[in-house]
């Protein structure tokens, strides 16, 4: 089956996005996690640019620029500063049982592919077969959030989920209206600030950013 070149490039970028989601699932070091997140943002920018160039939708150029500034430059910079301030820069997490996590990840990917199949057949965009991958990225990011026990990686999982959502929007409907995009970007920024404040509070209270300590707060 010979698809046009553009579709193939988008498929390749989608596959790289999925690969990065898997890599984030099994990554132990916080520093590498932030770098992977930045790389994921870069891939997202590239794919948005390709779709924009091939379909001539100009607002996608703005969307790509926004993604680049936010996800590749600003947020990683904030995160790097945060982990330096919180003294968790060289933290290595004890992830329990990486093979099991990956197996669950693969099951999620199969699920996402199957759920997205009828929807993608209805879509009329150039990147419709990548809807399944976008959904899989969202689910994998969710799994990353669940399997982590430290606070900063959980937040990175949350941000990666948003990456997946933007990719889904680009592939299914040529992006969202600009207003919605700006709104989401603002939400993410505000969320980061609030979470940053929370991190400092947690560390003050428990002397560590291990969220399992939060269990002590429940009533006995």
């Amino acid at each position, binding site marked *: 089956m010979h698809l046009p070149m553009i579709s193939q490039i988008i498929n390749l970028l989608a*596959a790289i996005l999925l*690969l990065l989601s898997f890599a984030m699932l099994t990554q132990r070091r916080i520093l590498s996690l932030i770098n992977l997140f930045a790389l994921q943002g870069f891939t997202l920018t590239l794919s948005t640019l390709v779709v924009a160039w091939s379909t001539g939708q100009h607002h996608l150029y703005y969307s790509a620029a926004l993604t680049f500034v936010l996800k590749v430059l600003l947020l990683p910079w904030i995160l790097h500063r945060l982990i330096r301030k919180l003294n968790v820069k060289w933290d290595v997490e004890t992830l329990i049982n990486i093979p099991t996590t*990956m197996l669950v990840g693969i099951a999620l*990917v199969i699920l996402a592919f199957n759920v997205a199949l009828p929807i993608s057949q209805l879509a009329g965009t150039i990147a419709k077969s990548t809807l399944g991958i976008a959904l899989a990225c969202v689910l994998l990011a969710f799994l990353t959030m669940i399997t982590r026990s430290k606070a900063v990686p959980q937040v990175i999982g949350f941000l990666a989920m948003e990456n997946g959502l933007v990719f889904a929007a680009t592939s299914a409907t040529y992006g969202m209206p600009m207003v919605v995009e700006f709104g989401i970007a603002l939400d993410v920024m505000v969320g980061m600030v609030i979470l940053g404040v929370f991190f400092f509070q947690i560390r003050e209270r428990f002397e560590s950013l291990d969220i399992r300590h939060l269990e002590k707060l429940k009533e006995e």
Partner: protein
Amino acid sequence: MISWAGLVAQLTEIVLAVLLAPVLLGWVNQCRAWLQNKSGPGILQPYRTLRKLFAKEAVLAHTASPLFRATPYVLFACMCLAAAIVPTLGTDLPFSPAADAIALVGIFALARVFISLAAMDIGTAFGTLGARREMMVGFLAEPALLMVLFTASLISHSTSLATIVERLAHMKFVIYPSLAFAGVAFTMVSLAENARIPVDNPSTHLELTMIHEAMVLEYSGRHLALIEWSAALKLFVYSCIGIALFFPFGIAEGGDALGLLLALPALAAKLAVGGFAMAVIETLSAKMRIFRAPEFLGTAFLLAVLAMLIHLLLEG
């Protein structure tokens, strides 16, 4: 069915592989030395090692059985057969109907089982340690390699290596994302199977850190020479499999002599680049704890499964 040109090409490929495999090993070691700012022993060092070992007397332990003595030959024969069926220069190979991709993995498994049994034959703690670790690496690496080959088979609708290469080479402007995943998985598997950092350190002398070396601890003289040569051949064959699957441009189709002659420098260039890349990976990584190796290989295995899934979704 068997053309003279094909037969000549086949024999040339086998002889070339057997004679030039130590050069690839020497090149990888030399690149590693350069990256570590050392001057290195030269590309032809493995040949000098082989000559030295063949001339030496073979010393066997009292407890060695005939299985121990036969294993180096079986290993060498397996690697020669593997070199015969992987298309390195051309795809017109009379031997290729003898074994396909699945049988190729079977050949590697046969070699692995024999060397593990030979390691257990002497009955010391080191041999059994090496055998256990080698089988532990093997039981995940073999399925991962098979899954990578399956992805290529699904794309080209065949498991015969010659056909796979022919069909993949003709799809010049089609980018397959599943092959990207499969490529990552294949790199991880070949690092593990060829006993490279980050899975195993080929130049260690501490027995407790050995995987592959612990199995050949008792071999000496011509037996050790054959085993070293087989290891070099294995690295050569793995590199050629990688080139055939992921960079098949330049491999001659059919048995024309000009195509084969042009394929030779193409192969040399690709192997040089591949060897250098392997040296870079080895220099940048650290050897991981032995019990991280199943995780590493499990990741490779699951990536290969993912490659198949992506093929079925995106390219089916």
